[in-house]
């Protein structure tokens, strides 16, 4: 197991996928002091009700709060290593089918009950139980059971090797919650979360506000944390402010000490301003990508998909819309994920002339209005959307629509409420979709592209035996080098066959007022408030 000294935290080089900070006072020499309340205006998008059960919903805004309430067994460290958290150490069996975790013996949940091997078994069994219909079940992969060896030793058994296990365990979606509280609150647990984290849940106002208070007994921060002992802040108040202009306003007028997902035009100004500090980190992610419906004509023809791709100038689109605050993506995987293949950078160029030739050869004739058609069928691409302009996605599409129009594609945007969107995706009733999926391991490619493994409403409709075989092989390989080699092939294949077109890498950022120190972004790209404090 790796031991990392407390001194070398949060010093990852900016751009290497770790936390980077800018602004005038990113590094301060003053010593932290305890106390105070931090109000965070966060983008809760279309949250109807907070659901703070870490195992229940995969929605990122919830997990940004949950991370402060519940701890995980292990923590993700730079260079794809894992460090101790609730588990002091662990061993993997030779066949890769069981992991023995030696747990800390001094940890208590916020309700006073003891954290132990039985609690670990309870959590994973609860997730695995189909009756509970919990979303985190896919993170456990081929999980079979947890054997309680003694009070503080738990053995997790799998039916076959599962390479992403440790990475998934470090995610908040497999954070450990109090079994007693789950039993006590039942279906109301998502609004009464109890974990072992540095902050405990105090109260919420539906869809608008969550209040956390410091857990004074906390002394089990993860490896790499900035200090030992309890958090500095007395209270954390998360305010759901869905409108970006309002987030900017409340940060500017000082009502909020920090705000996330600030629009690019404001972010640029705030980076340069001494009044603010920007903390940012890459979200470990299957990058936001476009998916043509490969099961539908004419997108089932690889050449039409290629023509579509060659018509796009993604660099131009991302620069125009994100103003340099987000990088253009070359691979499906975000750069800090294991197996990301840097060789893909610059591997193709927009080529509208070649796209036009391809379409000409295939019999798609340019009509009077510039849109191509073949045997009376127009080259119309219906882009189905449900999330609106989150992360400027519709703005991006608007730019790309013009690029596509130049080679004869007619892109229409069909905005649907969530329910009908999912139903149409299920039925395959669309031409083009966009989407991202946060994940700590390249196995996310299997969750998107493998028919046997992906969800019924996955954005990808790809059914490619070669791809499937590679993805299965990589998921059960326990050799990182072998996995990297396989994923390099997979990324190339997905790009060459235009199964998806990666657009941008999301850098998640929190802008704080200059007096707020120590906010960090973890390896997954989620905010940490454990080391945060307020300079008086």
């Amino acid at each position, binding site marked *: 197991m790796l031991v990392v000294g407390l001194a070398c935290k949060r010093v990852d080089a900016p751009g290497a996928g770790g936390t980077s900070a800018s602004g005038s006072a990113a590094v301060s020499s003053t010593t932290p002091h305890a106390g105070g309340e931090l109000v965070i205006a966060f983008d809760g998008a279309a949250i*109807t009700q907070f659901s703070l059960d870490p195992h229940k919903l995969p929605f990122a805004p919830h997990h940004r709060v949950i991370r402060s309430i519940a701890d995980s067994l292990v923590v993700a460290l730079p260079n794809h290593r894992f460090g101790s958290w609730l588990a002091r150490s662990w061993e993997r069996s030779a066949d890769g089918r069981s992991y023995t975790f030696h747990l800390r013996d001094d940890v208590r949940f916020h309700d006073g009950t003891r954290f132990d091997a039985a609690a670990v078994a309870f959590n994973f069994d609860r997730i695995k139980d189909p009756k509970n219909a919990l979303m985190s079940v896919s993170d456990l992969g081929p999980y079979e059971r947890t054997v309680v060896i003694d009070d503080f030793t738990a053995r997790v058994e799998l039916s076959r090797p599962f390479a992403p296990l440790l990475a998934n365990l470090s995610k908040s979606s497999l954070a450990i919650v109090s079994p007693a509280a789950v039993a006590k609150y039942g279906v109301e647990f998502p609004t009464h979360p109890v974990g072992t984290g540095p902050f405990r849940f105090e109260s919420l106002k539906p869809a608008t506000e969550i209040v956390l208070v410091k857990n004074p007994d906390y002394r089990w921060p993860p490896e790499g944390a900035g200090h030992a002992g309890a958090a500095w802040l007395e209270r954390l108040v998360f305010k759901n402010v869905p409108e970006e202009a*309002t987030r900017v*306003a409340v940060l500017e007028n000082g009502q909020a000490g920090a705000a996330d997902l600030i629009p690019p035009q404001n972010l640029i100004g705030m980076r340069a301003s001494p009044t603010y500090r920007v903390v940012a980190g890459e979200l470990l992610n299957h990058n936001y990508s476009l998916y043509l419906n490969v099961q539908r004509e004419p997108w089932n023809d690889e050449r039409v998909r290629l023509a579509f791709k060659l018509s796009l100038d993604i660099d131009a689109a991302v620069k125009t819309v994100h103003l340099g605050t987000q990088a253009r993506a070359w691979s499906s995987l975000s750069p800090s994920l294991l197996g990301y293949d840097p060789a893909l950078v610059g591997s193709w160029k927009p080529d509208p002339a070649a796209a036009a030739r391809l379409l000409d050869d295939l019999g798609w004739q340019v009509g009077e209005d510039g849109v191509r058609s073949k045997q009376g069928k127009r080259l119309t691409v219906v882009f189905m959307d449900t999330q609106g302009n989150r992360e400027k996605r519709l703005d991006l599409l608007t730019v790309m629509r013009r690029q596509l129009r130049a080679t004869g594609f007619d892109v229409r945007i069909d905005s649907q409420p*969530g*329910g009908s969107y999912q139903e149409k995706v*299920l039925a395959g009733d669309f031409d083009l979709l966009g989407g991202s999926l946060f994940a700590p391991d390249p196995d996310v490619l299997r969750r998107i592209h493998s028919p046997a493994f992906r969800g019924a409403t996955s954005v990808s409709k790809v059914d490619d035996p070669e791809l499937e075989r590679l993805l299965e092989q990589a998921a059960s390989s326990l050799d990182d080098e072998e996995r990297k080699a396989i994923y390099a092939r997979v990324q190339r294949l997905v790009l060459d066959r235009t199964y998806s077109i990666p657009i941008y890498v999301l850098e998640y950022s929190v802008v704080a007022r200059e007096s707020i120190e120590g906010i960090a972004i973890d390896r997954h790209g989620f905010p940490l408030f454990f080391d945060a404090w307020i300079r008086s």
Partner: protein
Amino acid sequence: MMRQLLARVFASISVVFGAVTLLFLILNWLPGDPATLIAGQDASAEMIERVRTQIGLGRPIGEQYRDYIASLLRGDLGTSYVTREPVLDRISSQFPATLSLTLGASLVAVVVGVGLGVVSARYHGRWLDQLIQSAALALVSVPAFWLGILSILVFSVWLGWLPVLDDGTFWPSVLPVGCLGVFVSVPLLRLVRDGLIGTLSEPFVMTLRAKGLGERRLFFVHALRNALIPAVSLLSVLIGDLLAGAVIIETLFARQGVGRLAVEAIGSKDLPMVQGAILFASTGYVLVNLLVDVAIVAIDPRTRARARGA
């Protein structure tokens, strides 16, 4: 009079019942399966099916409607598909916020609309009237959303006078209430102004003038009372604008409220929640209309005379 009122009440109940039924049908006919949405992006077909059974979908629509109406009569609005909490609990926790927002905004609308309408009519054709008319034109031309953002920028960011986020005090309500109120006041303002100007040229005013009644008394007592009658009727229409505006204002100012709840519930196809929210909105609408009718009878002697004659 009493019979008339009873007929009104009965008609109002029918309107609410009709709205509920229509909405039930529309929501059920709309494409989109709540179960796929609740189960989430990664869910398998089995999980979606499990969720579907869990929330009681897949039964015949007639059966669902019968159960819905039956529980409605017992005061049970059902359980949210998404959060599994009773809809009534959720709506009643959000309702006070919306009520205070819309009541406050109505008050602002009446004060601003009637006040400036009177001033405008009094200075009819002069620069003050023209200024108010131009401002009103500008206000009706901008969306409520833009007005909200602008007021946040000016009063909260530049001047630093007012907070935006709810901090448990009265102050964060000023901007949202003010914005919504001012936004709704414009049609009222124009109606009061035009009504006053029109009334002042009516024969009865000339008669009163000839009888030597003072200008001030003439204007405020006789003309204004006449001009207010259409304004009060307009209030019953404006309640719709208020509720629609509340949706935008609640989102923009990150407030709780039934409007925001309804929109988000529509997005997640949380049918019981949508139905509950619309039931509240339609009941509110109908109640306000009923009150307006009663108020008109109270301030307009002509309707009383008609009622007696009927």
